[in-house]
């Protein structure tokens, strides 16, 4: 019976979306459903996580077929952790969008689509079937297309077109890879594939297939030669949408790279080298791209790219400690990046603009809000003891012992540039006096106290999560240690699927 818990985070979001579709155009009902439902989903995700943490990996064979033939849902520690993180971020964003989003967007069905997106994310983290993973990816991208275009401003449509064409191409690479895999092994179950891939004679075809997957997931997670759609689209949608995208969507790509490369393909020297080159160049291009950006959201978009490189680099080293660093960074990054875009939304409410030239004086006017934001910025930069620091320690250590000196240099440079741009942003937005010729359009001040609080609570929740991850790093390390162990030695995953 406890196995059915796996599907709870998926079905709860589905039910929320269905009820919100029935309550079409009733924005108050939709808002209550969204926040309440996201809380229920968070609770169910936490229950799933504790169950998996205590009792180990659990599986569910849909439609009661036996393992390799059914579509199997697997909650191992990595998947369950990702579901918890998705639920925390989803809960925070649902509160933020219930207060911060324009009524117009809600009337066009923002909330049901948002919950379809969360359903797709949870499904992608919990499935144990490679084709089912493709289907969940499609659910995610269709929902994200709608969210991206909702509102229909000029730059939104332009961004959406680039985002759409690149993501459809990525799905096509992914689907081609699946087709070749099925042709080679006759199976789609990831645990079964993991066993059968050892017996495939045609090793070069295996290598080519792994490149198909890296291309597909690489576009989705925005690594070096494939990331250009991200900075040209992520700054266009409203902050709540950008927060979901920036926090979660690229990380699904990283999750998929981790999953596929640990279970189906064991990275050989070529794949490792390829990933390492991509990682180093991703960090460098992302960092350099962020240097001259004055629009806060464009700046954050480039920082997303830059930090994706840290995680890909960890996968490229592929030792236990490096994978610990990658997964720890993943946990930290989801919390912080979601929060960054929510912060840009609050700045938008306070000032009506998000380019740094027209901003200033926020610290003088709102010292408490500024301090809250400062915590988030510091943990993004990775000041110890906040959350960004610990995963970098692991990554540095493994890069040194593995003699990946380019990656070490890129890590240092990426961290320094992050520090520089965040310091620049702090000076421009918070410390500098507001430019004399700018008229402030403050939408925040006239709001009632409760709505002000509700705009800041999600940032607070995510900031507390970041601080907790940083201060109680030992607990996180224990989780991450087990995840990395399961990624290197996949036998527990395979045994759980085949119920041995």
């Amino acid at each position: 019976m406890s196995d059915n818990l796996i599907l709870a985070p998926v079905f709860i979001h589905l039910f929320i979306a269905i009820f919100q579709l029935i309550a079409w155009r009733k924005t108050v009902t939709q808002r209550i459903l969204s926040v309440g439902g996201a809380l229920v989903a968070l609770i169910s995700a936490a229950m799933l996580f504790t169950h998996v943490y205590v009792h180990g990996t659990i599986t569910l064979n849909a439609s009661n077929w036996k393992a390799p033939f059914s579509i199997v849902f697997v909650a191992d520690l990595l998947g369950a952790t990702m579901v918890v993180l998705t639920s925390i971020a989803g809960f925070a964003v649902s509160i933020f969008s219930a207060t911060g989003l324009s009524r117009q967007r809600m009337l066009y069905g923002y909330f049901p689509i948002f919950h379809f997106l969360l359903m797709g994310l949870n499904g992608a983290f919990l499935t144990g079937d490679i084709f089912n993973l493709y289907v969940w990816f499609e659910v995610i991208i269709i929902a994200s297309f709608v969210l991206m275009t909702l509102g229909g401003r000029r730059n939104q449509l332009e961004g959406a077109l680039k985002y759409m064409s690149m993501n459809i191409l990525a799905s096509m690479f992914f689907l081609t890879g699946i087709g070749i895999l099925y042709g080679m092994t006759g199976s789609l179950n990831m645990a079964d594939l993991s066993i059968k891939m050892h017996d495939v004679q045609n090793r070069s075809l295996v290598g080519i297939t792994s490149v198909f997957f890296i291309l597909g997931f690489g576009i989705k997670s925005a690594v070096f030669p494939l990331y250009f759609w991200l900075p040209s689209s992520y700054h266009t949608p409203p902050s709540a949408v950008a927060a979901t995208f920036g926090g979660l969507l690229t990380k699904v790509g990283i999750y998929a790279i981790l999953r596929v490369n640990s279970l189906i393909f064991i990275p050989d020297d070529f794949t490792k080298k390829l990933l390492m080159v991509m990682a180093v160049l991703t960090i460098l291009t992302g960092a350099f791209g962020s240097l001259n950006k004055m629009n806060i959201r464009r700046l954050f978009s480039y920082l997303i790219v830059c930090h994706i490189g840290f995680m890909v680099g960890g996968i490229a080293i592929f030792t236990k400690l490096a994978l610990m660093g990658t997964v720890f960074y993943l946990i930290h990054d989801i919390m912080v990046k979601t929060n960054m875009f929510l912060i840009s939304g609050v700045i938008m409410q306070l000032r009506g603009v998000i380019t740094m030239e027209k901003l200033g004086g926020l610290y003088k006017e709102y010292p408490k809000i500024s301090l809250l934001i400062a915590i988030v910025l510091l943990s993004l930069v990775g000041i110890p003891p906040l959350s960004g620091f610990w995963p970098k320690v692991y990554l540095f250590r493994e890069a040194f012992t593995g003699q990946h000196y380019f990656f070490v240099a890129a890590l240092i440079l990426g961290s320094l540039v992050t520090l520089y741009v965040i310091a620049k942003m702090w000076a421009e937005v918070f410390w500098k006096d507001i430019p004399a010729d700018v008229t402030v359009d403050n939408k925040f001040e006239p709001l009632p106290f409760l709505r002000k609080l509700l705009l800041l609570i999600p940032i607070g929740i995510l900031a507390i999560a970041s601080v907790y991850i940083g201060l109680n790093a030992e607990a996180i390390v224990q989780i991450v240690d087990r995840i990395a162990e399961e990624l290197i030695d996949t036998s527990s995953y395979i045994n759980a699927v085949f119920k041995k």
Partner: protein
Amino acid sequence: MRSSILQTATRYLLPILLLFSIFLLLRGHYYPGGGFVGGLVASIAFVLHSFANGTDATMKLLRKKPLSLIPVGLGVATLSVLVPVLVGLPPMTGLWLEGDFPIVGSIGTALFFDLGVYLVVIGVVLTILFTISLTDD
């Protein structure tokens, strides 16, 4: 431009196509057919009607917005997926009632899942087509 030949033909074709779509829906479990194809045929029937008589006439014929079919269909499909959980089986397990029924054949959760898909497909296709044709004006 309204063609009276098309209008007259549509008057007869619409019920026939709808009947055919239900036929496809019901035979779907063992033979080619099923909820998706059935839903497509049903929505083609309405699309044909809108070609002959204009989109407004079709919307009047449907009375309700096609969008409202989507949550109904999703709900039916989701519930049929979750029914086996009540008897302690994994979700999506096929449960069938004993014996055959006239016209419908055997009744089970898979049939209701197909019915849900059928409704969702009609809702989605008509919503998309109405959106495209109404933005023309």
